[in-house]
Each structure stands twice: as structure tokens, then as C-alpha cells.
């Protein structure tokens, strides 16, 4: 402690005045014999109490005077050298909170080391420094919002609350954001602290060295104390088994042995109740592939190995649906099978190839949401007599990503019910006769070029097809409707209408031999299979298969509400379509759709969230890219900061004053 006006300290002996006065007055004070002293002391007190109280009061008075004198001397302290030796800086702390930072070793993780280092560094910072924190786990986040800054103390409190995520890392993007933020801060020395495990995959997209100009970078290798060993399931895919015709799948698994020891342990694959546990071997530093053939009695499965230091990537979930399920709604069954559309559709779809869909058939009156829940694609073959509820259920089915192929015919022509507008671009108005038209492929709106290419191939084959009758739709098509194939007379032949996440394909002629010889031509089977494949692609685009941690999953809502059940059992309710972003935990997420206030779901869906396999590879470059550059830009020392003490001492004096007044009342 030092004093700005130390001359006042010479007055400190004045503090002894109360003491001197007391003893002087005691010696000089007249003495009175007075035996009613019992009434002079307080209740329960005695002269001994009085003497103690007087002693304390004397001490308080002495202190009070001493404190007042010291206040006049204006005391101050100089900040300790650790904090005060450097001036305030603008600092961005980039912390890698991706999955690989959770690698455990002796009870500590790279995240623990990284945050401890960051906390140490922040504690040594000048308290007036400006700090921004950036986390590189996907999606990259930064605190506080742009335009605001934190003190080192607040940044420390924030970092204390952070944990490593299970998402992939994007250190390159985080560093770029950190550079942008540090350049927005005040005109002080600009510094960046990067703490990461610096795996090779983290360094993709790093800013070029010249981009760091003017910024002092300090790095901390959080994996420095830890042996980077990890074993993980990096891939698990179920494909239809080509060797058998039953509902079996072949599960292809890739195991990464990133340790120094050979892997010789049990690998377990499970789909519903069926499971296979097999002892497998994998040399160190290798990726080994295994195949398991098993019954696909559930929509998803999981692959697991015994947990190691990074247990999150030792399990992986996969979609286990072997083939598409196609429901044929036969609107006009015939006695002669070869005259029926179902006959031709079955012939086209059940070719002896691996990805043939599973077919089922139902008649229009019997079709219910139960049938739709089990189907991926619905083919309405010359259907005209649906009830409005059935039409609405179909529309909901499409909106959730399902596909519907509708073919025209006698029954279709009779449709007049307005409720069909939920599915069709417009109701059929008349049947037109055409004579050997030529066909023009106009499906430029198709999102996947492969689908368009296939359609153009099919279009070339259509030239042999002789279509006599076409059903003609009314005008006023809603948005999302487009013509994929039309005749040279501009009559629509194949129309697509997008509804929600799915689509409806409308073939405006028959798929049997009533209005055309199409079923007898080579283009028929490829066309039907293309249509099914095209419709199925909408459902695939929804991500029924796996997404990675923190990816968003769209929940398309056509019912009243939908509940997303997370692996942890948490339920998030959607009352309108939207993005589900709470996918921070790997596992199976279930979507239940509800109608009205019903407690039973009218449909369900699942999606799988897995860790990003790149996080399982702990390989590192030979040299950490961020060399400490502190020597290049030395820190400007600031003058020592004086912290005045007199405001505190004023408070002490006030307290002493109150204490003296209280004691005076006691004596």
C-alpha cells in the first residue's frame, strides 16, 4: 500500500487522543460516593461490563480517527505484476468442442486440458481486456453476439459452463469467424488463442497464414498429454441381400482400429430382436470391413463394439429397410389377370433383380391409414371411388414424404368429387382421342439430374408406344404442379404435383391395355420402376436414413401435431412443420404423428443420428499449424494502475462511527 499524501500520516498520533483523554479524565474526574450504582448500569450488566464496553469504545474511537487520517492520506495499491504487467488486449478464444475432444485418458479429456489452459490464460489477462469465445463444434458458435464483448471474468464463467459436444468439428470455420471477430474489436493488441486436438481432419479449410496478419496467435495442443488411440464403428449400411429372396439385408460394417494394439473383440449387430455377435479381428491402424446377413424385421439397427476411451463412436445406427414397399390399389379388378393393371404392374416391379420392391394390393374400399403406414409408394390403378377421408389420408401420406402414382382409366374419368383436389392438380374434364402422338420430355424441374436422364432414356423408348386415349384435366393447377411428359399436341401425359415432402405422379392414360399398348412395350417396365424410384427419392431426401449430430431434420406436419421422442426420452411437440435441431445426442429419434387430440399416433417415422466418422480418426499432422507468435508482436506494457482504497476506508469509517454511537448508548 502506498499513499498519495503521506504527510497526513504524521497526524496519526492524534488517534491516541481518546485514550489519553479517557485516562486523563478518569484521573481528574470528581469521585462521587453513590451506592445506587445498580441503577446506573444496564439491565443484566455490571461495572465490569461497563469497563469492557468503555475499552471497546476507546478502541473504536482510536481506530475511527486513525482511519479518517489515513483517508486524508489517500492510500492506494498497485495491481499485482501478473495482471498489471500487460495492458488490455482484444482476445478471441477458439475452443474445439467437437467429439474428439471427449477422448478420455486417466480421468481427463482434451477438453479438460483445453479449458484449463484457457482459464489460466484469461485469469492472467488485464481485466479491461475484451474477450470473445468461439466454439468449433458444428455448428460453429461465438459469444457474445457481434457488437458486444466480454470481460475475461465473464468469459471464464462462460467457459466453465461449456462442455464438449458430440458433433463434428469445423476448426477452419471457427478460426475464420474468430479472425473476423477479433478485427471488429477495439484497436488494442489483437490476440487469438486456439485450443484443439489439431487432428488432420480439423485443419481442412484453415485460413491462410497471411490472413492472420496483425493477430498474435497462441495455440494449445489439447492432445499433448494423451495417447491418441481410438476404436470406432465408422460405417454401417444395410443393403438388400442379393442371394436370397426373403426380407433379409446385408449389413456392411467398417471398423476403425486406431489403437496400437490389434482389435480382437466382439462386434454386435442388432436389428429389432435379431442380433449377431461375432468376434472379429482388425490390425492396428487399419479400417476393417465386415458383412452380416440378417432378418430385417425393424426399421433400423445398431452396430456396437465394447466401449473405449471415446465411447460415443463405438455404436452406430443404420436404416434396415431392405426394399421399398409398394401398395397397389386396384380400382378395376378383372377376371382375366392379363387384362388387369395389377398384373402388368407386378410384372414390371417384380423383376428378378435385387432392389425389387415388396408389393401388396388392396381394393379401394378397404384402403386405410394402416395400409399407408406400411407403404412407401402407393399406386392408384384406375381408382375413382375413394371416400373423402381416404383421399385426405393419402394427401397426408404424400405430405410426409410418401409417393403416389395415379393412372387414369374409366373409373378415374368419372371423378367429380372436389376432395380429389387434395391430390390431383385438377379434376378430369374429358377423355381425348389421340393418334400415334410423339412425346416430349419436359421434366426440367426434376431436382435430380439422374432422374431426368433416366426419364429421357425412357422417353426415347416411348416412341414405340401407341396411346389412343388420354384423360384431360381441367385448368387452374396449383403451384408445385408440372408436366413431365406431353404429346406433340401439348397434351399432358405425365404430371407431377409436389405436396409437402412428397409427390404425386399422374399418368393420364391407363397402365393396362385399355387405352394403350404401353404394357406390351419395352418402355413399360423401366417407366414403372423409374416412377417408383423417383417417388421413393422424396422419402430418402427426408433423411429417413442417418444424419449426423446437430444436423437439422425437417418435420413435415400434415396432421394436427407430431411428437419427436429423443433417445433420452424427451418429447418435443411440433404443431406445424419445422426444423428439428435438437439432435445433439446420437441415437434413434422417433416421430409420432397425431390427429386432433387423439392419444394414439396415426403414423410414425424414425430417423437416426450418428456421430461424424471423421471425428473418430485421431491422426494428426507432423506439425501443429499455429506456432505461437507472441514474440513477433510483443505486448505493450501499460503504466501501473493505482487502485484507490479510500472508498473502502470511508465505508469502514462509517461502520466505526455507527459502532461508536451504539457503544456510547450502552455506557
Amino acid at each position, binding site marked *: 500500500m502506498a499513499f498519495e499524501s503521506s504527510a497526513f500520516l504524521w497526524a496519526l498520533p492524534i488517534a491516541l487522543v481518546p485514550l489519553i483523554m479517557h485516562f486523563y479524565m478518569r484521573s481528574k474526574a470528581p469521585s462521587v460516593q453513590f451506592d445506587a450504582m445498580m*441503577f446506573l448500569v444496564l439491565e443484566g450488566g455490571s*461495572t465490569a461490563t461497563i469497563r469492557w464496553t468503555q475499552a471497546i469504545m476507546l478502541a473504536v474511537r482510536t481506530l475511527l480517527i486513525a482511519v479518517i487520517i489515513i483517508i486524508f492520506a489517500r492510500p492506494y495499491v498497485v495491481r499485482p505484476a501478473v495482471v498489471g504487467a500487460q495492458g488490455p488486449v482484444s482476445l478471441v478464444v477458439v475452443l474445439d468442442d467437437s467429439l474428439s475432444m471427449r477422448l478420455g485418458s486417466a480421468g481427463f479429456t482434451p477438453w479438460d486440458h483445453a479449458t484449463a489452459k484457457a482459464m489460466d490464460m484469461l485469469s492472467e489477462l488485464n481485466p479491461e481486456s475484451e474477450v470473445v469465445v468461439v466454439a468449433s463444434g458444428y455448428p460453429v458458435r461465438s459469444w457474445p453476439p457481434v457488437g458486444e464483448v466480454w470481460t475475461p471474468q465473464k468469459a471464464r464463467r462462460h467457459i466453465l459452463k461449456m462442455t464438449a459436444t458430440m458433433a463434428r468439428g469445423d476448426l477452419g470455420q471457427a478460426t475464420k469467424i474468430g479472425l473476423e471477430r477479433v478485427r471488429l474489436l477495439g484497436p488494442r493488441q489483437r490476440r487469438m488463442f486456439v485450443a484443439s486436438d489439431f487432428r488432420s481432419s480439423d485443419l481442412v479449410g484453415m485460413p491462410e497464414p497471411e490472413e492472420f496478419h496483425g493477430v498474435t496467435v497462441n495455440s494449445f495442443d489439447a492432445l499433448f498429454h494423451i495417447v491418441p488411440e481410438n476404436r470406432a464403428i465408422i460405417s454401417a449400411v444395410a443393403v438388400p441381400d442379393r442371394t436370397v429372396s426373403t426380407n433379409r439385408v446385408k449389413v456392411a460394417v467398417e471398423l476403425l482400429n486406431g489403437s496400437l494394439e490389434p482389435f480382437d473383440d466382439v462386434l454386435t449387430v442388432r436389428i429389432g430382436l435379431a442380433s449377431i455377435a461375432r468376434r472379429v479381428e482388425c490390425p492396428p491402424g487399419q479400417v476393417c470391413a465386415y458383412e452380416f446377413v440378417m432378418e430385417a424385421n425393424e426399421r433400423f439397427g445398431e452396430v456396437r463394439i465394447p466401449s473405449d476411451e471415446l465411447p460415443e463412436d463405438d455404436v452406430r445406427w443404420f436404416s434396415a429397410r431392405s426394399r421399398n414397399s409398394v401398395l397397389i390399389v386396384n380400382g378395376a379388378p378383372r377376371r382375366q389377370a392379363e387384362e388387369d393393371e395389377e398384373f402388368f404392374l407386378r410384372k414390371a416391379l417384380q423383376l428378378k433383380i435385387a432392389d425389387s420392391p415388396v408389393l401388396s394390393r388392396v381394393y379401394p374400399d378397404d384402403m386405410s391409414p394402416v395400409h399407408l403406414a406400411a407403404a412407401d409408394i402407393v399406386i392408384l390403378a384406375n381408382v375413382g371411388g375413394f371416400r373423402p377421408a381416404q383421399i385426405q389420408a393419402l394427401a397426408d401420406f404424400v405430405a410426409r414424404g410418401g409417393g403416389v402414382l395415379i393412372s387414369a382409366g374409366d373409373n378415374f374419368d368419372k371423378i367429380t368429387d372436389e376432395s380429389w383436389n387434395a391430390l390431383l392438380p385438377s379434376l378430369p374434364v374429358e377423355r381425348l382421342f389421340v393418334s400415334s402422338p410423339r412425346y416430349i420430355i419436359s421434366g426440367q424441374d426434376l431436382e435430380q439430374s439422374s432422374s431426368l436422364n433416366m426419364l429421357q432414356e425412357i422417353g426415347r423408348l416411348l416412341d414405340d408406344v401407341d396411346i389412343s386415349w388420354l384423360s384431360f384435366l381441367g385448368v387452374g393447377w396449383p403451384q408445385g404442379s408440372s408436366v413431365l411428359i406431353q404429346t406433340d399436341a401439348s397434351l399432358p401425359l405425365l404430371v407431377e404435383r409436389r405436396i409437402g415432402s412428397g409427390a404425386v405422379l399422374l399418368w393420364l392414360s391407363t397402365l393396362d391395355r385399355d387405352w394403350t399398348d404401353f404394357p406390351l412395350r419395352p418402355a413399360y417396365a423401366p417407366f414403372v420402376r423409374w416412377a417408383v424410384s423417383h417417388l421413393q427419392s422424396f422419402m430418402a431426401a427426408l433423411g429417413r436414413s442417418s444424419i449426423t449430430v446437430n444436423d437439422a431434420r425437417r418435420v413435415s406436419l400434415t396432421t394436427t401435431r407430431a411428437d419427436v421422442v429423443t433417445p433420452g426420452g424427451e418429447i418435443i411437440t411440433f404443431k406445424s412443420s419445422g426444423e428439428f435441431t435438437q439432435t445433439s445426442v446420437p441415437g434413434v429419434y422417433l416421430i409420432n404423428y397425431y390427429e386432433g387430440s387423439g392419444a394414439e399416433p396415426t403414423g410414425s417415422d424414425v430417423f437416426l443420428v450418428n456421430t461424424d466418422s471423421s471425428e473418430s480418426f485421431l491422426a494428426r499432422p507432423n506439425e501443429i499449424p499455429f506456432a505461437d507468435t507472441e514474440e513477433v508482436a510483443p505486448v505493450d506494457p501499460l503504466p501501473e494502475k493505482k487502485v484507490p482504497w479510500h472508498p473502502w476506508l470511508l465505508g469502514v469509517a462509517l461502520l466505526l462511527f455507527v459502532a461508536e454511537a451504539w457503544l456510547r448508548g450502552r*455506557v
Partner: protein
Amino acid sequence: MTSDRQWEVLPSDAREALERLRLRPMLMADGRVSGVHISSHMGQSFEFAELKGYAFGDDPRGIDWKVLARTDKVYVRRFHDETNMAAWLILDASASMNQPMPDTKFRYGASVLAALSYVLLRQRDEVGLVLAHSRHPEICPVRSSPSHLGELCQMLVDARPSGPTVLRSSLEMAAAGMAKRGLVVVASDMLTAEWEATVGALGAIVARGGVAVLAHVLSVEELTFPFSGNLVFRSAETGESALLDARGLRRQYLKAISDFKAAVAEACLKVGVIYKAIDTTQAAHNQAAGIIHAVDFRHFKEA
């Protein structure tokens, strides 16, 4: 042995003023000689006691002729005898009574008790004196001779207050020596933690048929606390001392002493002891007269 100093506690003007006073506590005295108080025995006096059916041997002079005329029955009128009374005067001779100098509370109390003894001896009552200043108090036994007054006054003049207040034990000793019903007067400042026990001992005397009076002697200083500034207060009895700000404590002290007086008076009232606060600014014989009036007033109220 007596000297002229004995009259310091009872000067001649005080004696003149007290000459015509009589103390009549109206208790059934058990005196040995004839006096002014009603005796517990029947005898010749003007104090009517009862009517009694005539029996052989009764003095026919006592027959109530008027009753005989009205009722045709013979009754004899009976009267109380008149006798003298024993009175014990107890003076607190503790150190606390020795202030303020030179007119101390002890001196004032001695004058009051001397005045009382003068009145009592003049009506041929027996008077004893106890100076309570230790476990073994000085006692002057009861006598009724006129010359006893000189002894009492001499004893009061010669006494030197000292030591702690031991009124209770003194009272118990006096009560034990007082075989007959009589009067007990205590003059004390009651500045002791045992004041309640003292009042209780006086109450026991009242319960036995006697009359007890507490003359509460407090000095003007103790009642008004005229001090100011920082003073060292010393207690002669306990030896305690403290440097205190008298002005700051005055209000608190006055309330405490007032409460104390009220508490003593209330305790006396509860047990039938006559409480008399002594005003030391007045002449001592006037305060003695006040005690006599208080006793008479008490008798008047009871009657």
C-alpha cells in the same frame, strides 16, 4: 454513658414539636404496665369490648341496666384493659447509608427514629433499637423508662455506618426477641439485592399481629441525580467504581430509581407493611410525625 451530643439527633425544637403527638397503632398490645393501648385482656378502660351474661362473681357495677330494662335479661358490660406496647426501631447502618456527607442518610434516619422513640417513651411504651450493620447488630433492649431516651440517642450518635446491608438477619433477630405483639419501624435505603426478603420479614411481623413500618430513606442525590459530566461513581458498600457520563445516564437512572421505589412500595402494600418514603429535605421530626400519621391513617382505614 450519655453526653450533650446525644441531643444532636433530637434537638429541643424537635422535642417541643413532638410533645403533643401520640402514636396509636390500635393493636391488641400485650404490655406489662398500664398504657394507652388496648390490651388483649379485659379490664378497666373506656374501650368497650362486649356484653356478657351475668354470672355469679361478676361485679354488679358492670350490669347494663338499659339492656335489662329492654330484654328483662341481665348482662354485664366488659371493657378492654389498657396497657403499654413494645416498639423496635431498626436503623440500617450499612455503608450505603453513610452518604451524602455530612448530612448522611444514616444521620437523618437516626433523627427520625429518635423522634419516634421520644413520642413512644412519652406514652410509656417500651422502645428498643437495633443498628443493622453486620451479622451481629448492635441492640439496645426495650425499656419504657424516660431515661431510656438518652441511651437510645447516645447509641444513635455514637454509631458509625459500615459494611453491607444485613437488614434481613437483623429483622429476624429482632422478631425473635420480640415475644409480644408490637411495632417495628425500619429506616433504610433498601439499596441491597435482598430488599424483597427484607420486606418479606416485615410482612411476617405483620402476620403475627404486629405493625411494621418501612421508612424508605433515599438522599436527594439519589432521587434527583443532579450530576453532570464525567464522574467516577464509587459504591461504598461494594467498592465498585466506574467513570460514567452522568448527563447521558440521567434519564435512564431516574426511571430506574422511580421504578425501584414503586416496586418497594408495592411489595410493602402486598404484605401489609406501612411504606413511608422519607423526604430528607424536610425536618426529621416532621418525617417522624408523618410516620405517626401514616400509622394512624392505616388504623383509621381498617376501622
